[in-house]
Structures are given as structure tokens and as C-alpha cells.
């Protein structure tokens, strides 16, 4: 395709406005400075380079989205998404995937190569925490900026849909406060928005000892973690489905729903991938439950014969699952496998929430009578790879363990067939015979 397909909403070819060009120019120059910041030239003024390579491109992107707002009417914005190289696994998509994957590898295992880049975050880090920046401060800041900037894009693209507006504001707010600012201020790296088993170590004996040693605040944090994992999770999932967490609170979800939104259609919808997903995600859950249990047994029993094994298993889990899977693949593969690779195939928290959602929750997606035209938009834009239309065209409620309740299927449905609902548990699976096809 030779034409420019970025957000074509008005005809006559002049919608590539000066404002859009300005935004793109700032973004491009800012990206250039981002790469320059890998060199020691940043020593001249870390603050200046922070402004040039972080603030400038963010502002450029925001100006570009604002220009889109100005030049389009509210409504579904998916024109050309299957044609654009950046979003259809084309040259640009692969480039972005390699770049993201590479950044994760550098941050996790080769931070010394990022030394100059890390230094430009010093002014912000000192302002927030009193300490110089490190790779995790760099990571957390870039992550939060991505959620906020791309969150604005999500808000603009979905401005006709109040569910999306409120939900997007929620993930942006939670990421900025619970997962960024508050952990910075209290300085022990505790996130109030992540729980066991996604943050497996929060309920490890080591955490208990560390937090209880730090007095009342520490005890509160451990108490918070335990309550969220064992009481809030089942109760809230009973009422709202897993969406209360996965697409409203969770930081992984926040990035998927903002930075990952342009890639949601790249998730595989086949029955085969569904099968792989069920095996993988539940295996991870079983493994982390066993590791956690064995760590506690080891903790209370000096002569535990599996002691050494379980500590090494925990290390390998941390490397393969938490770092490689959740981080590197989970985000790096957005442009290739959609925005929820980790949530779908790996997250043990999603597995638990999914089991509750499937068997003990009031949540479902209801189908409006016999109005489905099998157009496939719902399935195409399901980030979790659920073949939504296979249910909708039969007039059957969608109750799937993996559904994160993002509500996009309902939004893109051109016939108003789908609605996210909380209703009575009885007869949830029962088919409406009158409309069953």
C-alpha cells in the first residue's frame, strides 16, 4: 500500500495537517536524542537531555494525538490498521518488536550499557526518591510515560465510549500512583497494585520477614498483599469478573491496553492457540503454587530435603517466567503476537482469576438476540484471542476464563450485539433456545 493510512477520517487528502506534522517532527527529533543519550555527551546536562529525549518525543506524540482529535469525528478508529506496516507485522512492526525486546534485555541483564541513559533520569530520580537513578527507575519511568501517553491516544480514539474512557483513566491513574509514585516515595519497591501470584515474592517467607522487620508499615503491606490475594480477588471477581483487575488495575494490563492497543488484532484466534494457552497458563500457576508452598515448608523446617532444590527452582522461575516471559516476550512481542501474550499464556494471576470467572462469577458477555452478522470484528480485535463471534453467531453468552473485560468487542460490533454484564450465576451457561442458531 502506497497511501498514507494513518487515521483517515476526512477525505480530500489534506488531513495530514500541519499540527500532525509538528507532532511527528518532535517525536522523531526526540527519538534521535534518545539514541544520542546512549553516549557520554549526556554528562553536559542530564536534565537537558532528559527534556530532549524523553519529554520532547512524549509531547510530540501527544500533539499528534490531539491533531487526530481535531481532524476526526468520534467513532471506531480502525481504518487501515491491517494495512500499516507498523501494525500488520510488517517491516516496521518487526523493527519495533526487536527494539522493545532489545531494550528489555539491556535493562534486565546489561544495565551497564545504559549507564549514560540512566544518568539523564538522575534529576527526576533525586526529586522523587532522593537517590540517583538506576535501571529500574529508568524502566519504571519509561513504562509509566508509555501508559500515560498512549493512554491519551486510547482516550481520544474511544471518546464516544464512556466505558473505555473510565477504564483507561483507571489504568492510567493506578499506574501513575500505585505502581510509580507511591513506591518511589516509600522506597521499598512495594506495589499496592500487584499481588501474589503475579508478584510471587510478595507472599514468600522472605518478604514476610523483611516486611515484618520494618515495623507497622511493613506489616500493613504484607497484610494488604495477603488480603488482596485471598479475599479481594475472589470477592471482586465474583461480582465483576476478572476485569476488575486485568483491564482496570494491573500494570501489565495498563501497558497492554495503552501501548499495546494498536496491536490487539495480532493475537491468534485459532482453536489450537486456545489449547496451548490453557496448558501453558495453568502450568505456570501450578509451578508457582508449588514453589511458594515449598518455600514456606523450607522456612519452617531446617531439615527440608528439597530446600536447595526449591531455592534454585525459584531462581529459574524468576529468570524464565518473570523476566523472560512477562517482560521480554510479554512486551517485546506486542507487534507480533498481540498485546496480551503474557496475560494469556503465562500470568498465574490471570489463571486464578480465570478459574473464578469461569466457575464462580456474575460476569458474562451477553448476546443481543439473533442479530450477529458474523462480521468477525469482535474476534479480530479481541486481545485475548477469543473467537467471540463463534459464540455470538450462535446466540450464546460468552463466558471464557481468559476474557479480561476490556469491552472492545462490544465497541467494534457494528450491530450492537454484545454487552458486558454482571448478572445472576444461575443459568449463566443456559442457551437462549429462541435465538440459538
Amino acid at each position: 500500500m502506497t497511501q498514507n493510512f494513518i487515521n483517515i477520517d476526512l477525505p480530500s487528502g489534506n488531513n495530514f495537517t500541519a499540527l500532525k506534522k509538528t507532532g511527528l517532527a518532535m517525536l522523531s527529533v526526540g527519538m534521535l536524542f534518545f539514541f544520542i543519550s546512549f553516549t557520554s555527551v549526556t554528562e553536559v546536562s542530564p536534565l537537558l537531555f532528559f527534556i530532549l529525549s524523553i519529554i520532547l518525543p512524549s509531547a510530540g506524540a501527544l500533539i499528534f494525538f490531539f491533531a487526530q482529535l481535531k481532524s476526526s469525528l468520534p467513532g471506531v478508529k480502525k481504518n487501515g490498521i491491517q494495512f500499516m506496516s507498523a501494525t500488520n507485522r510488517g517491516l516496521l512492526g518487526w523493527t519495533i518488536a526487536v527494539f522493545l525486546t532489545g531494550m528489555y534485555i539491556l535493562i534486565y541483564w546489561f544495565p551497564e550499557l545504559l549507564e549514560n541513559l540512566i544518568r539523564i533520569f538522575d534529576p527526576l530520580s533525586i526529586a522523587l526518591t532522593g537517590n540517583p537513578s538506576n535501571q529500574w527507575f529508568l524502566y519504571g519511568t519509561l513504562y509509566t510515560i508509555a501508559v500515560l501517553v498512549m493512554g491519551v491516544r486510547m482516550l481520544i480514539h474511544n471518546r464516544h465510549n464512556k466505558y473505555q474512557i473510565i477504564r483507561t483513566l483507571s489504568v492510567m491513574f493506578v499506574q501513575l500512583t500505585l505502581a510509580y509514585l507511591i513506591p518511589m516515595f516509600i522506597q521499598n519497591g512495594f506495589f499496592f497494585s500487584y499481588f501474589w501470584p503475579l508478584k510471587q515474592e510478595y507472599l514468600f517467607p522472605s518478604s514476610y520477614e523483611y516486611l515484618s522487620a520494618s515495623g507497622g508499615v511493613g506489616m500493613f503491606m504484607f497484610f494488604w498483599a495477603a488480603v488482596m490475594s485471598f479475599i479481594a480477588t475472589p470477592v471482586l471477581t465474583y461480582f465483576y469478573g476478572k476485569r476488575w483487575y486485568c483491564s482496570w488495575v494491573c500494570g501489565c494490563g495498563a501497558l497492554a491496553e495503552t501501548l499495546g492497543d494498536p496491536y490487539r488484532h495480532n493475537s491468534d484466534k485459532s482453536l489450537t492457540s486456545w489449547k496451548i494457552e490453557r496448558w501453558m497458563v495453568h502450568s505456570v500457576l501450578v509451578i508457582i503454587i508449588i514453589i511458594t508452598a515449598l518455600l514456606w515448608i523450607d522456612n519452617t523446617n531446617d531439615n527440608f530435603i528439597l530446600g536447595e532444590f526449591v531455592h534454585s527452582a525459584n531462581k529459574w522461575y524468576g529468570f524464565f517466567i518473570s523476566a523472560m516471559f512477562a517482560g521480554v516476550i510479554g512486551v517485546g512481542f506486542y507487534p507480533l503476537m498481540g498485546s496480551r501474550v503474557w496475560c494469556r499464556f503465562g500470568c498465574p494471576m490471570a489463571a486464578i482469576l480465570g478459574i473464578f470467572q469461569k466457575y464462580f462469577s456474575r460476569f458474562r458477555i451477553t448476546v443481543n438476540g439473533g442479530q450477529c452478522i458474523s462480521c468477525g470484528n469482535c474476534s479480530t480485535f479481541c486481545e485475548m484471542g477469543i473467537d467471540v463471534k463463534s459464540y455470538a453467531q450462535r446466540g450464546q453468552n460468552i463466558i471464557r476464563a481468559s476474557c479480561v473485560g476490556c469491552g472492545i468487542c462490544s465497541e467494534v460490533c457494528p450491530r450492537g450485539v454484545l454487552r458486558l454484564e454482571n448478572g445472576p450465576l444461575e443459568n449463566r451457561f443456559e442457551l437462549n433456545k429462541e435465538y440459538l442458531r
Partner: protein
Amino acid sequence: MSENILIIGNGITGITAARHIRKMSSNNILVISSESEYFFSRTALMYVYMGHEKFENIKPYEDGFWKKSNIKLVFDHVTHINTVQKQVNLSSGNVLNYDKLIIASGSRPNRFGWKGQDLHGVQGLYSLQDLKLLESNSRNIKKAVIVGGGLIGIELAEMLLSRNIEVTMLVRESGYWNNILPEEESQMISRYIMQHHIDLRLSTEAEEFIGDENGRVKSVITITGDHIECQFIGLTAGVSPNIDLVKNSGINYNRGILVNEYLETNIIDVYAAGDCAEFQNAILFRKNIEQVWYTGRLQAEALAQTICGNRTAYSPGVWFNSAKFLDIEYQVYGLVNKNIPGEKNLYFENDEGNKSIRIVYTDESVIGFNLMGIRYRQEVCEKWIREKYSIETVLENLGEANFDPEFFRQYEYYLIKKFNSLNPGKNILLRKKRKLVNSLFNNSAQS
């Protein structure tokens, strides 16, 4: 004993018939199509052109489904039907025998004999082949003219806009689709079309298409004498049954293949359904040729019963349809804009003029709902119409019908306020607004 069921056409009608016959029997089922190897959603072709979906995404079933369901698909074209020997001839030279034949050959775009209608760059939009042609016809063009309003017309306009092509629409009626939509809704969509920078010209028609030296269309002249330059003409002035294949077969046809209420033709064991079928006696308030996705499916469901030994008349129940005009969704249930004697209309439109609720009712009961930009539950609206609920009862319970996503603004209150002000002495209160709290703790069927 299992029979050979031959189905011509793999659209929604043919495929629904095949699937339902498979559910009820072990007959040999064979579906012939020269349009596509696999069933796809015709209504979704637009999303492929606009780049929302890939063609793979608009196939309702994975390719392996057909083998698993033991439904045989043949990619070939029927050239002749021999109803005496119960055979069909195919383009490939093959001859297939049948015990029962279902014709579901669909429609094709109307061409009213305009001068120049065969020029390059002039086309309709119905089939997969039409979409491929559109892809090449619309490449690197600047300006298109669409002849005809209606659903395909506005969809084609939306498609062309997505490729930065300027669009002029020539519509015979005085308001967009106002033979179907009531006046206010037609005005709303007309306004909305113009907001999208589509040059909507009402009460006009195409007179002639002019070509250039290469036989490619370069302009259109309207009946009012306007001369509009363009590089593409979309013909969307309705569709007609695709019935070439029954000519010289002894099967009776008029505009479509003539059938009774059991979808039986004049020839035993030959049936027709969907867009290509014409009822000898139309159902009250319905057309004798129904060209809608939903009616094709409902006809096929009735026909599948008949084929499997349970002779069932097509009795579709309360009318419903839905569509999307650019970004405004449309749903209709029951009788709207039919000028039923004694009908009254209660209409509410929001201040922005892009959402509306209309309830049509008589002194006895409600008879129709028309929604723009607001989703209502089919199940609830149908029940109210079928069981003849009074307007007062419906208004009190209107919250139950709302199907919009959570947090959306609800307008039922305003509609009722309007009803009360128009009917002095009435003081109807909205009994159950759809609220999150209700949906959490309420155990009735609707939440």
C-alpha cells in the same frame, strides 16, 4: 436412508440450511459456490476494504469446520438445472445428482440501463469479486459518485472515505433512506452524512455516465443536468434476485424464484430461499422478496426442518433489522414507518442530534421500536410487541430494554418525560433504570 441434498450458494442462507440439515440428519450435503471456496460474511466485506479485518477474519468458521461437520464444499458454477433427471451441470463439466435441491443464489446489484453503465470504473458492490474489482477500480482515484442511497450506498461511501476519496451521493428520495426510516431519523442520518464531508444530493438521479477515450468513466450527468466529474461510479440502487440459473429449467420465476410459504417451488424437491426467493403471497407488512441477512437465515432454518421431514412454514415473527450508518448504529423491532391506522409515535432525540429512541404504538399496545445510536434488547422489545404490552407498561419498564454498555448515558427518563408532557394527566415513572447496583444484586432474568 440418507439423501443427496444439493445447495446452490454458500451465503448465509445456503450455509444455514446446510448446518441445520446436518444437525438433524445424516444426509449427504453438498454446497456449490462459484464466488468463494469458503463461507464468508458478506456484510463484512466493507471491513476488509477499510483495513479493519483481513479476509481470513470474516470467515465465520475455521476451514476445518466443514470436514468435521461432513459438509462437502464444491467451488464451481452451476450452468443448468435438469429437474426431470434431478441433475445440475457445472462449468467444470461435472454433473451432480440430487434428491433435494436448494437454490440460494442470492442477488446482484441493479443496473437500470443507464447509458454508460458498462464503462470501466462503474460497478456495484455485492460479491467478493465486486470487492476485488473495487480494490483495483478505486486505486489512485480522487473522486467517486455513488448512485443510490440505502445501506450499501452509505457503506460504500464509508469505504471510499477510508481511502481518502471524495464522495458524492445521488439519492432519489428527499431524505436519506426515508422510504424505510421515519422523517426525523432520515434527517439525522442525512445531516450526519454531510458532517462526514460527503456531498449528499437528494431528490436527484443519474441520467448518463460519460467515458474518456480509454472507456473509463470520467463524469456523470444527473437528471437535473448537473455534471459531476469522477473516476468511479458505485451503483447501489438496490439488488435483484440472481436467477439466471433457473431460466429454461421449468422452475417458475417472476422477479425472483417463486415459492410458497414452505419455500417450495413449483417443482417437487426443488426449494429456494434467501435473496433469490420471491413469495407468491407476502406475509403482512413484509416484502415478497426479503434481502436481509437475518431473513435469509430464518428462511433457511425453516427450510432445513422441511427438508428433514418436518414440513415447516416460514413464519419469521416480529420484524427486526440493524445496520450502521457511518458511526451511528441503527436497530429496529416491529412496525416502524408503516403508517398503521391509529398509530402514534413517541420520539426523543438528544441535543447533539445523533441518538434517538422512537416507540410506535396504538391505543392497544406498542408495535415498534426504532433506535439510533442506542442499543436495545431484541428479546425484550419482541416480547413487548408480541404480547401486546401497553405503552404505559413499556415506558415504566423501559430500562429493561437498554443494552448500551455500562456507564453510557441513558435517555429513557427523557422519553418518558416527553410522553407525560404530551399526555396531560399521565404521570409515568421509570420503574427500573438500569443501574450497576441492580445488575449486581437483582436476580431477575434481566439485569
